[in-house]
């Protein structure tokens, strides 16, 4: 209809030149009431896709199909809605195409920064969100300095804008920038502080809009916390560094230009104090302290606190005294410290109490920082001391759970001052403060951060850094509390258990430092020694025969290492502690690494004279004799999985201990001590592995000829036969490596004392007499109990002895003993009473197999021949006595001898036999 109207107008115009057509004038009829409005309105429809000129095929577009360029153009559109939409569009586009932002980040920033001082609140908010969620995270790794400098001018511009909202928003932006690029504060510090000062001076606004004030102040707190302080956290070592003299990139050093801002900062503090003062009447008038005003006040106080700390401890040229001149100190003491303590006018809620408590804690902290500069009157000082005492005792805070939490969270703020207070105050207050501190330390939850804070304070008070000492080091008051703290430490360790390894680590570190330091202080020295009794529970306790492992076993490895290191510093390690550590060592769950570490450290402690030699040796002996080897018996080792077996550990333990023992001192003296101990243990019939280990230690310390005493030779001669037979019985003969490991120590002993060999042979011989065989449960052997296996073992043992060249030489002088052994074997054969036929057959064949198998390898070699000759002799002996089973022997012999090369000897043997039979 619109168009038709237009056309009619045209017609009218045309009609001027022509004859006027008369029309009927008059009122039009009103449309009928039921007429339908057929008018159609339409707007122009923009269809960008259809445009040929802007074909966006392959370009990154937003949901609305706009490219980045178009969107950026639209951000400066005069319509606020369009601008906001454009920002949304950019966000949308960046999410879907992150590469787009990377390529055009400078262009984007250059365009967007204009919007920082946008008039429209919604646009600013959208921009803020865009920066926060996309742009800053997206450009984090780039050259941020340039990036930020592009922004900063606009932010500063906005900070001086007339509209208060824009200014506040600018602070919010700046806060965001600082979060992503902290050095930017140091670059623009002076300007920023000026801006903060300006805005805080406008005191009418903050009383109205506390929410905005709160965000501004929190930004200020964040900025100020970037001020450099003298105590930088010690850089943790980067052990992963590949190169030692590596190039280190220059980061903008944080402390450039901070000395110049002191004046500005001082003005800012004055403004903040005024601000705070303005709030006080408000507090009194208000029925209760609401969250917002609380947050504002807290932020103010925190800012003051940080600034004061910077004045005093910060890195700058000026001395704290020159900064805190008359104006500042008087303002601080009058307006801030004068109103202390803040307390609620109307006791309404518990929560409010806590809030006031927090504020008071911060004020107290500020005061304690300033104490030396302000020189408070005794009255004021005592007011604060009283507050500190009560705060530490927890009497101010509400007893509700939230109150407790608040207390735990904020008390650490006061703790750093305790050491200084304690060292400077006079006795009365000193003991009150220390008492309350100790109560705090004892009462707080072991796993809380408060406990950790207390621990670090205790460390400071126990171990002076540099030359800071307690002025009255011998002061009994301090000593009393030090005693309490030290005694608390082991208890704390057991309390912590394995619940929080990090806390345990802190305690152990403190213990270690204490140990290292204790050498120079006689009092601490004694106290540290006394810890041992309680500390032993940390390792293990033994009650009524039951063994309970302490937290040590369950802690991670670094904690275990630390606790082991603590052992080194006890100047006289007592037996109780050593025992409990030993129990831990013997536990099969202990890692081998830690196990060896314990031995290593204890040996180092011994070397430093911290362990008595008797204790040390008995520690070693206990390990050797009671170390449990898994799986229990030797035989099935190779079949079962090797993982559970700790044979390797035990073997290296043996070598380790023997080398340590040989280092202890004069070997003959050590040998005498060890000899006694080992013989006592060996007679208790330990498992084979342990016995072997002890024998090995013994031979390492012994020399040739042996230093063994007469008695011990006799004792050994009673033990060794059983041991040897067990070894032979348990280890399969083809496992040469293993049996060598077990038998070699005995061979060494035989080599060094032929008397021992003689006695051993005698005992073996006596085993084989009838009377002994009839006792099935003879105690001298563990495995080879029945007579058959015992005879078997004897034979293989003799053969093993013959195989070894050295021992063979010695044994050649003991023919009579060997002969008697063979005799008894033979006589056993002859006595048919106890053996069934089958048994005997088995026995004989095994005897023969064993006798002749070693000869198979070398008929040509003289050694083989000689042993063969020896065998012949033995067989001859057998044959001499056991004539009645000769036929069977011969039968077996044939089988064996056919494989032999020494035919001549065989022939000789046959003739001998024949001769005998005849």
């Amino acid at each position, binding site marked *: 209809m619109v168009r038709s109207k237009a056309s009619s107008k045209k017609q009218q115009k045309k009609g001027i030149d022509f004859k006027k057509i008369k029309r009927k004038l008059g009122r039009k009829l009103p449309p009928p009431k039921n007429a339908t409005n057929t008018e159609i309105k339409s707007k122009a429809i923009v269809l960008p896709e259809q445009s040929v000129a802007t074909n966006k095929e392959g370009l990154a577009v937003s949901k609305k199909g706009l490219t980045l360029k178009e969107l950026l153009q639209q951000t400066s559109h005069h319509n606020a809605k369009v601008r906001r939409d454009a920002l949304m569009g950019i966000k949308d586009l960046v999410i879907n195409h992150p590469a787009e932002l990377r390529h055009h980040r400078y262009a984007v920033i250059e365009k967007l920064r204009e919007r920082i001082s946008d008039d429209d609140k919604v646009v600013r908010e959208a921009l803020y969100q865009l920066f926060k969620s996309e742009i800053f995270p997206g450009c984090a790794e780039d050259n941020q300095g340039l990036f930020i400098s592009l922004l900063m001018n606009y932010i500063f511009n906005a900070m001086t804008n007339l509209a208060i909202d824009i200014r506040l928003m600018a602070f919010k932006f700046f806060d965001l920038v600082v979060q992503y690029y902290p050095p930017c504060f140091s670059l623009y510090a002076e300007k920023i502080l000026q801006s903060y000062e300006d805005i805080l001076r406008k005191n009418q606004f903050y009383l109205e809009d506390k929410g905005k004030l709160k965000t501004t102040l929190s930004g200020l707190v964040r900025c100020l916390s970037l001020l450099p302080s003298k105590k930088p956290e010690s850089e943790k070592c980067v052990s992963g560094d590949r190169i*030692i003299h590596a190039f280190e990139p220059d980061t903008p050093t944080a402390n450039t230009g901070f000395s110049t801002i002191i004046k500005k900062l001082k003005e800012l503090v004055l403004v903040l104090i005024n601000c705070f003062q303005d709030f006080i009447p408000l507090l009194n008038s208000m029925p209760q302290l609401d969250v917002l005003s609380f947050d504002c006040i807290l932020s103010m106080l925190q800012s003051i606190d940080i600034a004061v700390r910077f004045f005093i401890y910060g890195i700058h040229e000026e001395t704290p005294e020159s900064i805190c001149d008359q104006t500042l100190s008087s303002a601080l003491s009058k307006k801030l410290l004068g109103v202390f303590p803040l307390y609620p006018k109307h006791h309404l809620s518990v929560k409010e109490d806590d809030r006031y408590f927090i504020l008071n804690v911060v004020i107290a902290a500020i005061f304690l920082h300033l104490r030396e500069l302000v020189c408070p009157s005794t009255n004021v000082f005592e007011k604060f001391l009283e507050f500190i005492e009560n705060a530490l005792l927890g009497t101010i805070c509400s007893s509700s759970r939230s109150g407790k939490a608040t207390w735990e969270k904020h008390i650490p703020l006061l703790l750093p001052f305790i050491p200084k207070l304690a060292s400077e105050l006079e006795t009365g207050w000193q003991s009150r403060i220390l008492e309350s501190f100790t109560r705090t330390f004892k009462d707080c939850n072991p796993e809380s951060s408060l406990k950790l804070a207390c621990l670090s304070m205790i460390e400071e008070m126990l171990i002076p*850094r540099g*030359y800071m000492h307690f002025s009255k080091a011998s002061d009994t008051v301090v000593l009393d509390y030090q005693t309490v703290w030290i005694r608390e430490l082991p208890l704390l360790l057991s309390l912590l258990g394995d619940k929080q390894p990090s806390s345990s680590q802190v305690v152990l570190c403190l213990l270690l430092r204490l140990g290292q330091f204790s*050498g*120079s202080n006689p009092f601490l020295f004694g106290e540290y020694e006394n810890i041992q009794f309680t500390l032993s529970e940390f390792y293990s306790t033994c009650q009524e025969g039951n063994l309970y492992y302490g937290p040590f076993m369950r802690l991670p490895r670094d904690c275990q290492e630390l606790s082991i*290191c603590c052992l080194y*510093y006890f100047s006289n390690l007592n037996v109780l502690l050593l025992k409990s550590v030993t129990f831990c060592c013997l536990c099969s769950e202990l890692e081998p690494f830690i196990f060896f570490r314990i031995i290593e*450290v204890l040996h*180092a402690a011994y070397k430093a004279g911290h362990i008595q030699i008797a204790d040390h040796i008995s520690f070693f002996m206990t390990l050797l004799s009671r170390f449990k080897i898994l799986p229990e018996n030797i035989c099935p080792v190779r079949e079962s999985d090797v993982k559970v077996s700790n044979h390797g550990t035990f073997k290296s333990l043996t070598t380790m201990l023997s080398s340590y023992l040989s280092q202890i001192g004069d070997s003959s003296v050590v040998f005498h001590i060890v000899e006694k101990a080992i013989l006592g243990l060996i007679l208790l019939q330990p498992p084979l592995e342990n016995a072997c280990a002890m024998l090995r230690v013994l031979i390492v310390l012994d020399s040739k000829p042996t230093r063994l005493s007469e008695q011990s030779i006799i004792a050994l001669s009673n033990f060794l036969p059983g041991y040897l037979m067990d070894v032979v019985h348990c280890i399969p003969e083809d496992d040469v490596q293993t049996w060598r490991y077990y038998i070699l120590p005995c061979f060494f002993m035989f080599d060094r004392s032929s008397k021992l060999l003689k006695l051993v042979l005698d005992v073996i011989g006596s085993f084989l007499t009838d009377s002994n065989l009839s006792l099935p449960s003879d105690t001298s052997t563990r495995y080879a109990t029945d007579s058959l296996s015992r005879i078997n073992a004897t034979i293989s043992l003799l053969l093993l002895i013959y195989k070894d060249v050295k021992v063979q030489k010695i044994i050649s002088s003991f023919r009579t003993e060997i002969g008697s052994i063979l005799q008894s074997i033979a006589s056993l054969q002859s006595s048919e009473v106890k053996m069934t036929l089958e048994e005997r057959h088995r026995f004989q064949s095994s005897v023969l197999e064993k006798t002749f198998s070693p000869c198979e390898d070398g008929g040509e070699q003289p050694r083989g021949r000689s042993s063969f000759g020896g065998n012949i002799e033995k067989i001859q002996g057998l044959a001499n006595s056991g004539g009645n089973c000769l036929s069977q022997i011969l039968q077996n012999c044939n089988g064996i001898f056919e494989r032999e090369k020494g035919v001549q000897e065989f022939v000789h043997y046959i003739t001998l036999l024949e001769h005998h039979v005849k």
Partner: protein
Amino acid sequence: MNVVIASSSIDGGIGCWDLQTGAEQLRYKTCVSPPHGLASIGCRFLACSQLRDPSATSGHVLYWSWSKPQALVKSFPAEPIKPLAANTEGSYIVGGGSSGDIYFWEVATGRLLKKWHAHYRAVTCLVFSEDDSLLISGSEDGCVRVWSLFMIFDDVRQQQASHLYEYSFTEHTLRVTDIVMGYGGGNAVIVSASEDRTCKVWSLSRGRLLRNVLFPSIIDAITIDPGEHVFYAGSRDGKIYIAALNAESSPTNNYGLHIIGSLTDQSKPVTCLAYSAEGNLLLSGSEDGMIRVWDVKTKNIIRMFRRSKGPVNNILIVKLPYSLSRAESKVQASSRRHEISLQPPLEKYANSSDEDLDNKAIITLPDMIDLPSYLSSQLINDHIKQLQQQGSSAAAEMEVKRLKHDGQRSMEMFQQLKKVYDNLQEFCVNELLNGQPMEGSKGN
């Protein structure tokens, strides 16, 4: 001539061998040294602290000259001294006491110039920096501290500072067993070994930990190669591990991070190491009393020295002055002995305060190689005094004596000449008297 010097914790004297030829030199008698207790004082003579019963309240320090096997000078410090170190010129000796104190003596006078409380527990090793301005000490409490000698002798700065040390590294948990220092003065790295099975590399310029190397066993000795490429660590399991400093190390290897390889031959623990830049030799002393010389390139042993018995616990490589290495004539030997016997023993306590005020050092130009260039002013004063005395009374006396002697000699000479003259005259007179009548008679 480079000689290898080794001492032991069991008395067997100090062994001395020529590194090139392997020939054994003089053996210096009666020495029971603790680890790090042996020091060569400016290559002029040997000093060694002595190990005694741990409960003893005093120890002693012995001096040997190169030419005599017996100890010449015996000093009795206030407490047992274990580690001993001297600066390159040999003008000062530093000793670490068992209470954690460090003693600083002047060799020429034996005066105790300074004593300060350095550690909470016994000092275990002491090392001077290349330029002798820094002293690094390790202790039983696991602490490694760096001391600047300028600070130690600067009373004013001491009062201002909160602590004496430049750095205190407390990361070790157990006794520090050895410390070596790299090259480069103030920018050097320090490597410290400890019983906690680690070696730690520290930066002197930045004062922080650069690297932590965990070994399979306790390291008792370390030495650094001249290129600062790697360091060698002798361990209690008998191996000498090679750990990377600037060398590349692959993250996966047998022993652990930063450990490149090992030198192995022995099962006995390695107790001390020394590196000889000449010929790139590594010397290791072991618990079994052997000193092995390794070629580090091929990792082979090229020579072994055997001490009589007992574990070796100190090895030094000392470049003997040329004159000493030659067979000395008797005159030289006697003069040298004279010089050594002049070294006064180390004093037990610091002198009274008024003398200490005079504690300034005088630096002379290094025109004479023999003399140390840093001397305390008192020593110089003494020298001057001596010279002056010689110039006045003593010299005059000598002169008078000499003149008297001369006079006497001249008198004797005169007498003799007179006698001769008399004889001659007599002879002539006789001759004349006898001859004339003869002549006369003849003529007559």
